[in-house]
């Protein structure tokens, strides 16, 4: 914003000329920043030399020599620090993505519940929100990990749901699918069904705009989505083989396992962030003028369509920006994993690798750049979405 008069006074010296002064201040500021940078750089150089640490990124190729409890890609102790980095990054992304999806679902549910005309439901949602958003996330993570997960019974006394899911202090064991020969046929059928539904809805929309006649898309979509894959299963047999966890000796074998650290972290982050998302959703819905509802109803739109076509599109515009910052917070809060030893970016890389190699500057720089990159990607994605749904004003 233009705030100062930029016209030099006649007869004034250079010192009273706002333009000249602005230049001077900027040059001074840049010099100060460069000098500070040089001061830090120079000190670091001297200190590193004194401690005999060679800087550089070649340490990434050295063998790590420690095991990791959860790795989404193949990993063993002989792998390099570079691979440890990838494992940590994937674990961070895993917990962030699961957390974001679950927190969004729970948050929207709670936000709507808080506005419910039902007194009990809205009070319950309020109690939930006010409780969980006022307790530090790290404390919640500790609670779920130390007080809940670790005090679950051991593998031999695990709590089971049927003969497929087992919960014990080592994690949640569940059946793992693996594709059989007929999986290709099944996947193809699913893809064809989805394409069919998309084409059907496009056709029905075109027809509606041309003639005003409605065609219930779900009438065609549901048989398509169930029928085609069903037919594929009938023809080709079971597309997936399930490996069910079994108790052998002192532990379970087979199937997938969610380690307790992941569960505690996901639970805590979901519960904490959902409380904030619920508040964003509530304020978004409340920001839509009640006249909009009344106008829609007087046009003859039924309640469901009023919500879907009038209220939600307008509420989303208010909800998206704060929602973005909640997503960013969740991704950043996933670094609290270091507190319970979930092998994420921070605890693996800025913790173990830093301690083993002593390459503090490189490791911290890499870690920070990763989080900056994650933050920038999330905000770019959400900005793009925000722009897409933004009101185009005349």
């Amino acid at each position, binding site marked *: 914003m233009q705030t100062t008069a930029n016209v030099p006074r006649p007869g004034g010296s250079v010192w009273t000329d706002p333009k000249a002064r602005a230049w001077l201040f900027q040059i001074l500021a840049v010099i100060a920043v460069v000098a500070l940078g040089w001061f830090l750089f120079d000190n670091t150089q001297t200190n590193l030399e004194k401690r005999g640490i060679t800087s550089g990124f070649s340490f990434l190729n050295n063998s790590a020599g420690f095991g990791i409890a959860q790795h989404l890609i193949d990993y063993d102790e002989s792998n390099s620090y570079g691979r440890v980095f990838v494992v940590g990054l994937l674990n961070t992304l895993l917990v962030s993505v699961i957390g974001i999806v679950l927190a969004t679902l729970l948050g929207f549910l709670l936000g709507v519940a808080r506005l419910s005309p039902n007194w*009990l439901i809205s009070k*319950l949602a309020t109690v939930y929100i006010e409780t969980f958003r006022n307790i530090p996330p790290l404390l919640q993570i500790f609670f779920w990990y130390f007080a809940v997960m670790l005090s679950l019974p051991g593998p031999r006394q695990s709590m089971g749901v049927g003969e497929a899911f087992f919960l014990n202090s080592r994690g949640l064991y569940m059946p793992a699918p693996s594709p059989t020969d007929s999986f290709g046929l099944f996947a193809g059928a699913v893809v064809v069904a989805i394409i069919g539904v998309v084409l059907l809805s496009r056709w029905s929309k075109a027809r509606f705009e041309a003639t005003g006649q409605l065609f219930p898309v779900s009438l065609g979509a549901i048989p398509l989505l169930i029928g085609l894959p069903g037919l594929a299963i009938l023809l080709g047999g079971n597309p997936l083989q399930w490996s069910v966890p079994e108790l052998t000796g002192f532990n379970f074998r087979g199937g997938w396992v969610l380690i307790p650290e992941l569960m505690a972290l996901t639970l805590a982050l979901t519960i904490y962030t959902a409380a904030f998302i619920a508040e964003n959703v509530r304020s978004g819905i409340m920001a839509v003028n009640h006249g909009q509802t009344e106008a829609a109803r007087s046009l003859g739109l039924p309640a469901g369509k009023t919500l879907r076509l009038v209220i939600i599109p307008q509420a989303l515009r208010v909800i998206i920006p704060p929602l973005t910052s909640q997503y960013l917070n969740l991704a950043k809060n996933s670094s609290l994993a270091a507190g319970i030893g979930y092998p994420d970016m921070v605890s693996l890389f800025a913790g173990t690798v830093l301690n083993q190699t002593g390459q503090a500057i490189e490791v911290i720089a890499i870690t920070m750049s990763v989080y900056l990159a994650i933050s920038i990607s999330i905000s770019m994605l959400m900005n793009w979405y925000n722009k897409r749904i933004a009101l185009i004003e005349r």
Partner: protein
Amino acid sequence: MQTHTFKPDLPPPALSVGVVGWLRANLFSSWFNTLLTLFAAYLVWLMLPPLIQWAFIDADWTGTTRADCTSGGACWVFVQQRFGQFMYGFYPSELRWRVDLTLWLAVIGAAPLFVPQMPRKAMYGLAFLVVYPLLAFWLLHGGFFGLSTVSTSQWGGLMLTLVIAAVGIAGALPLGILLALGRRSDMPAIRVICVTFIEFWRGVPLITVLFMSSVMLPLFLPEGLSFDKLMRALIGVILFQSAYIAEVVRGGLQAIPKGQYEAAAAMGLGYWRMMGLVILPQALKLVIPGIVNTFIALFKDTSLVIIIGLFDLLNSIKQATTDPAWLGMATEGYVFAALIFWIFCFGMSRYSQHLERKLDTGHKR
């Protein structure tokens, strides 16, 4: 002539007034709502009685050791026995009056600021902000004027949590205001520097900042100059938080109508006097609730110092739960910690909402 007399009004239908009416309107207005009500009531019934049973009815309140916890509910004896550690950390017990005194001075000193009719409030507030930190440092740390030194490695518990939060906000506020002004400046170089600074700190998690300040700060500084652990954590917290404060203050600056800037410039005020006398007083008043919210976030974030090994409230409790004499007390410990944090944060958020209503004087455009 016969006068017409109205019949008395009929009473409203019995089903729409009183308790029954309220129930019908709020809980059983439709079959779907009835279903929801029943479901919610079931949830409450599922959770509340066991919780009360555990926390109050079956709980043990008196005793000195774990053996006194016999009734199977919560063992509050643990919290009672370790209360001193949770509040003061390893602060020598005979010197804990100094911590108490510091807190009381803060309460007594700040109380006049909350009295609306107080004259010369700004002057008093400024004096308080200058004098109190020195006094607090003298009382807590000591080392001169006759008080013995208590090194910061002995600080801990809730006291350390409060110290980090208070110093964090006191340091971040001025820095944040300067950054916000810089971001709105006409000078491109200043703007770029401020934007880079703000976006960098906002993009990284506090944990990595604390890691950085604990392992990289010693490398950055010349030989001989070193800070203790608490100081390093504080520097990290202040830099991190100032970026968030800057964004909150920027919101306030943007909300001030352009006419205010133009009027101040037309009066012949220079940049600093325009900001200090006209713009900032209005902008800061607008963003007080936002600053309180930032402070709540900071207060919750102080628990992260556990990562670099400081014994704040959460870490004190975590350490106590790993004591062999009190194994299995994790739930009691964390519930107690949650209660303390909750009381502080909920209290502050209520205060912030109250301020929002009080300060809403129609400045928004």
